[in-house]
């Protein structure tokens, strides 16, 4: 923002200080995220910059905390790093298991939220949709209702939502339900809960993409003889795809970062990265937590870049459609 030429000296001083203030706020926003990255390479068990680190002495830095991420929980972490060591790590290391759970739960809940959410967004953006406002408000509400309330409600619901004891249903579903045929302490329970939390994001992004979506394109396709299915996959889908993907990414991040609901409804087999972090932060805030945090920051940078690219692409595609 350039100052107009008629600005008074006082205004110039104010403008300078305004820029300084903005710079300080940007530092406030970004510094806490960046500061943990060098600290995760700390050779000492501290959360502060040691003298060696400040003088860029290589002795002040180390990869040991990243190494702990692999070895923590292993049966024999000190064994030579051969195939057996890797098998041990893959099976036993706590962070590795947490990552496996997080990815599995994240992907499945995202898939569920994206499919259901996209269909619903298509319906919601039709002008003839009945009770549009009320239904929209209901579907977005998981994002607004405090997580502790959702978690508490799900805790009660999952321990009461059980298949009848000894029925064929319970037999059939026993691999994915708890030993009493309930949703509590199961992967499925966490996946359903996370899908619920992810749905609002999919709806918001897809609905936003559908604003300005020209319905006459669909009619044109239909008039040229395309079936509704063909119309959807050949016309609608490519246009809303960027919105769908960024909605899916939001849903994935929501699941990947969610800890409150997991704390309440998950059992020991559903240890996820955030839950493992929660335990770590509460008990022993070792630099290993900062190593995880650093990896997660890198991950979020990648996601952010993807979403930005998609957003621009979406704007470009929609730019060619009349609105």
């Amino acid at each position, binding site marked *: *923002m350039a100052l107009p030429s008629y600005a008074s000296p006082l205004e110039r001083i104010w403008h300078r200080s305004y*820029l300084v*203030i*903005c710079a300080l*706020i*940007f530092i*406030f*926003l*970004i510094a*806490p*995220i960046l*500061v*943990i990255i060098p600290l995760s390479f700390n050779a000492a068990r501290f*959360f*502060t*910059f040691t003298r060696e680190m400040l003088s860029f002495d290589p002795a002040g830095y180390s990869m040991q905390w990243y190494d702990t991420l692999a070895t923590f929980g292993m049966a024999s972490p000190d064994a030579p790093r051969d195939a057996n060591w890797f098998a041990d790590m893959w099976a036993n290391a706590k962070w590795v298991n947490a990552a496996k759970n997080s990815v599995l739960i994240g992907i499945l809940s995202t898939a569920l939220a994206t499919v*259901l959410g996209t*269909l*619903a967004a298509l*319906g919601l953006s*039709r002008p*003839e*949709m009945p009770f549009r406002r009320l*239904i*929209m*408000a*209901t579907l977005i*509400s998981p994002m*607004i*209702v*405090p*997580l*502790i309330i*959702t978690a*508490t*409600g*799900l805790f*009660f*619901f999952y321990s009461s939502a059980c298949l009848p004891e000894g029925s064929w249903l319970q037999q059939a579903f026993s691999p994915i339900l708890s030993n009493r045929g309930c949703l509590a302490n199961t992967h499925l329970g966490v996946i*359903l809960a996370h*899908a619920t939390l992810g749905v609002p994001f999919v709806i*918001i992004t897809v609905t936003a993409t559908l*604003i300005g979506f020209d319905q006459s394109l669909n*009619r044109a396709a239909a008039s040229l003889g395309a079936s509704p299915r063909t119309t959807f996959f050949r016309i609608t889908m490519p246009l809303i795809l960027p919105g769908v993907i*960024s909605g899916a990414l*939001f849903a994935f991040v929501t699941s*990947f*970062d969610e*800890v*409150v609901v997991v704390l309440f409804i998950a059992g020991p087999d559903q240890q996820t990265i955030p839950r493992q*972090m929660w335990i770590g*932060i509460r008990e022993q805030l070792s630099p290993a937590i900062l190593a995880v*945090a650093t990896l997660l*920051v890198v991950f*979020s*940078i990648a996601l*952010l870049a993807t*979403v*930005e690219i998609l*957003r621009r692409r979406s704007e470009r595609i929609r730019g060619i459609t009349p609105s």
Partner: protein
Amino acid sequence: MASSLDPHAVIVTEAGSVSEGPLTTADGQPLQKALARSSRAARRRAFWLVAPLLAFIVITFVIPIGQLLYRSVHNDGFSANMPEISAWFAVTEPGTAPDEAAFTALAADLLAASEARSIGTVGTRINYDVPGTRSLFTSTGRQVRRGIEPPYQAALLEIDAEWGDAEIWAAMRGASTPYTDGFYLASVDRTRDIDGNVTMVAEHRQVYVMLFLRTLWLSGLITALTFLLGFPVAHLLATLPMRKSNLLMILVLLPFWTSLLVRTSSWMVLLQQQGVVNDLLVWLGVIDDGGRLAMMYNQAGTIIAMTHILLPFMILPLYSVMRTINPAYVRAARSLGATSWTAFRRVYFPQTLPGLGAGALLVFILAVGYYITPALVGGSSGQLISNMIAEHMTGTLNWSMAAALAAILLAGVLILYWVYDRLVGIDNLKLG
């Protein structure tokens, strides 16, 4: 192609045909009817697209929350385990002094509950209303099991004179039916006395009103802080050329995309007494080494960390509104002689209000329900109502109390959500 279900079939009415009856479609049906049918079909189709998700959300979200609300008014810890005395309460008037029949029923129930090991549940239920009575039930239960002789009134009073206390009988009467408003009363630090009048609880137990107020106050403060910090940044982003502002926008979006736990642990690292901020202040000579600031495990920790975490939710809506403000208005005001301050205050600022409203409401709604960050950095003075709900869920296991507190919080959030929908519109919620 023109089936009667096709909405476009109605267009094919013969414009030139002059008829006495109502307008008809090409295949001879009354236009009004065809129109109604086709719009009904379109509505049905739209609805069926939404239906799977709606059903999903109802099952995995609305019903669980309904169940939670039910728990806040329903607790059968006493009535289910003490059937005989509950039956006695059902047939007598409130305020009836307990007679030998009542004590006989009580003794029988105490024996049965003690043997079934549900006496703890019973005692816990009454303990909610009259603190300090849980042990009365468990210890009397143990002695009843060793054997007591009629008359039971005398026998029970001999075990513990507290059994003659009218307050306990009033509490048992209240708990003898599973439905109660007691947990809502307790949520606002109220209780019922022996005569059924609503009164304040003892002073050292008054905590919830204070916690609700603290939650509102801290959320308000955090909203104000995000506004103070977010406004200049949003303004800068909105007025810079697109290229530069896109670059700076990353500094806002990266925190937004970064894990909540990562950001909270960063703040723990920064704010510790031996942490980076204190080190920096000592190095700069602002404070001496002995006078390191306590910025964590207190309200300051909650405020700083939550302001940082919620700041993007203020900046983004402000930014998207500011982008649309035509700079010509401010220039016009200046050219008409307004000082820059007046031009800002009278012309620019009012135009940002929609963004400000959207951001402030969103930040406030998110803040009142925060749990993780206060739990980790808030100490005891930085705890919010959510933390008390969690404490009742996992610590004291007073689930009905947790449900009542959650219901009040939920009601507050839904009202704000409704206001948000009215003022901003949920459709206008933007992400990133």
